[in-house]
């Protein structure tokens, strides 16, 4: 089975060593997904697999035949930006921009996770419906490093989209 990326089918790479990240960036030219550390330590390579966020550097492309991958390019284009993309631009939720696609992919999944009732390390009551407090957003986004230090603005952008402007 092919691998499906942003609604398009692609052939799997021939070298099984190819990470999903290198497959996206090099083999099919989707360079919006970034390589910051290649070891699952920065989150710049975050993509959605079947709507779940993962680090694409720590999985092999050959393991994903039949999976549906969504990258930043699949969330919105310059002409059709999604709400989070617009909010990041408005709140200056970036500086150098290198961690940004990963932050936005991560935030996209995070909002779904909260809607699904998943708790986090910042959740006081595991059995209660989680709230979208700034502390919850911060904990849930902690897998995406930003060395420029745009965190405060990124949280504002996400809160804005979540209808919880702080």
């Amino acid at each position, binding site marked *: 089975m092919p691998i499906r990326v942003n609604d398009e089918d692609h052939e799997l790479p021939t070298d099984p*060593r*190819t990470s999903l990240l290198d497959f996206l960036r090099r083999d099919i030219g989707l360079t919006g997904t970034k390589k*910051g*550390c290649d*070891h699952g330590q920065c989150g710049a390579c975050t993509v959605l697999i079947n709507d779940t966020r993962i680090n694409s550097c720590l999985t092999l492309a050959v393991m994903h035949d039949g999976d549906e991958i969504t990258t930043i390019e699949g969330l919105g284009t310059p002409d059709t930006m999604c709400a989070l993309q617009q909010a990041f631009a408005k709140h200056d939720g970036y500086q150098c921009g290198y961690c*940004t696609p990963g932050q936005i992919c991560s935030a996209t999944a995070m909002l779904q996770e909260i809607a699904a009732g998943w708790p986090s390390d910042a959740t006081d009551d595991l059995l209660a419906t989680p709230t979208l407090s700034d502390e919850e957003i911060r904990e849930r986004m902690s897998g995406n490093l930003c060395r420029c230090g745009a965190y405060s603005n990124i949280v504002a952008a996400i809160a804005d989209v979540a209808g919880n402007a702080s």
Partner: protein
Amino acid sequence: MSHVLTMDKPDERNSLDAMKQGVIGQPMDRPDGIAKVTGTATYTAEYAIKGCAEGVLVTAPFTRGRVTRIDADSIRDMPGVIRVIDDERLITRAAQGDAGEAPDQGPLDVHYFGQPIALVVAETFEQARDAAKALTIEFAADDLSDVPLDPSAADTERVETTRQGDLEQAMKEAIHSVDVTYTTEGHASAAMEPHAAIAEWDGQQVTVYASLQMPNFNISELADCLGLEEDNVRLLSHYVGGGFGSKLVISPEAVAAAIAEMTLNRPVRVVMSRQQVFQAIMRRTETRQRLRLGTNAEGTLTAFGHEARISNLPGEDFTESVVQASQFLYGGENRFLQLELARIHRMAAGSVRAPGEAVGMPVLEAAMDELAEQAGVDPVALRLRNIPDKHPVKGIPYSSRKLAECLEQGAQRFGWDSGPRKPRQRREGEWWIGTGMASAARIHSVEEAQARVTLRVDGTALVETDMTDIGTGTYAILTQIASEMLGLDPSSVKVSLGDTNHPRGSGSGGSRGAASTGSAVFIACEEIRRELAKRMGTTEDALQLSDGSCAAGGSKKSLQAVIGNQEISHIGHFKPGEVMDKYLAASFGAFFAEVAVNEWTGEARVRRLLGAFGFGRVLNAKTARSQCIGGMTWCIGAALTESLLFDPVDGHLVNCDLAEYHVPVHRDVPHLETILIEERDPVASPIQAKGVGELGIAGGAGAIANAVYNACGARLRTFPMTPDKILSAMPKQA
């Protein structure tokens, strides 16, 4: 045509404020923002170059000595392997900021663990990575007992001394005094985009896509490395995924890519691994700093001593200017400032965001907190009391300085309690809560810069310079300067950066990019305005440009009509001048922090952090604020988590990845509050702007340290304040 403005005297014209477009200073969204949020901004490694081979650097597995043999045959038969590049022109380390020439070459002589020694080129990245690991090398390593590794044990050389009056005597006579020694650990820039380069060679010119902050210097460095004329080198850095000093200079991957390409006649991409970036690019030195501060009965400084011990690799000129702000921030007639440099075999020390102030200011400000406690003076009041009228050594005036305003407005917005301060007064469950503050200061500097502005026949403008945008907002502010000066909507201005075929800008570094290259754009626009005025039969100062129209006296025309079919293009050339010798120009500010410290575990969390800053004209309130909060985020890392750890046996960097070198994560950073003080500095630049990229990191870790003490009573004289260190210094439960 090139027009030069040399800054020999203050520019009091304040021209930008007389313009009519009304975009300068506005919190405009970045023009490059859409590309960044949609993943369509192309960073260095991402150019789709046909037939590009992949190179992976090989690094030395020993500390000092010589590689005696690189056995290319050992990997010749591995799939995809093309060549081992072990050219003598490969560089052993990154150059130093503003070098403009090759750093140390000849990679077979090894000076530190992890030094690049060769490049393996293969058809694919996977093949090159494997082959680089498999390459057999033989080496003669020096006996480690002869290799200095410990900065506190190594011999030192004095590199800088300021002496005035008699510090020892003044300390004896002081009514209140502190004599304290602090240490800070090494830092890494850790920009999110790893160092990368792609080289293409057409037999004449080598074109290198590289992630660089200062192509204007880097072109000379690369040409020198390769033995080429600058005319045969072109650098492209349209988007740079963070720099923080680590990309000021040409570094091993770019030189290796260029040599490989010229050897193989085939494009080659080299991307350093994250571990290699940590091990081979550069570090901020660790420091040991002694502060001697003494006051009279009123709390006015009479004695000011700041000595710092730093380190670098033998042969490297760079010194972390730890005492830089101590030269001008506070008074005290008896002064002694000194830097001592230890030579050790760790990777080269170089510029990491705000070299000098980033580690000097937090320590000075922590010592000031100790002095305030000693003297029983409110910390804000102590600082206000010691703002000197003129430079305490040189006697020159300050260009413009909003330190008092920052302290006062910051204190007010934060709700600073100026009453008596005592640690361990506020407790919420397991957490002690405390507050602390610090001043901010960062020297202002400018650099020669050129930019071309072209007013095109369609009524739009094009700005071209090899200046870069490393996340600082260059695309935005140059758009706004041209837009304001030429009366154009920002959407009618296009800015093209990071191409050495453009006029040479200042580069991004030392917080000088905006003031320097921004001034070059301003100067070019002034010339365009003069020409438009001439065409309108008026003078430049009588010309009013706004919304694409040209008005002078009673007449008004569309700008396009005035341009006609003759586009107007000028190069603005800004040169630093004598004015900087006549004034002390710096950016100033104040930090206020609230910190919680866990009684049981010593974990510290920043709950609030406010910064008030004055840095001349704000060119874009949104991107300037972002620079401030970025710096403040670094303060949290410097105060609590960031520390390079070196092996005591062979000196290698132990925590060489982002899992174990702890840059702050989202959850470490509360909402950050900023106050940007209105200021125009006529000395700083023709656009009255100073730098802001580094001000936000220059002192804030001290505010956090002071808040840790106020919270839990742990007066730690060491950064970062990790839980183990806080616990060891926390008073035992009563």
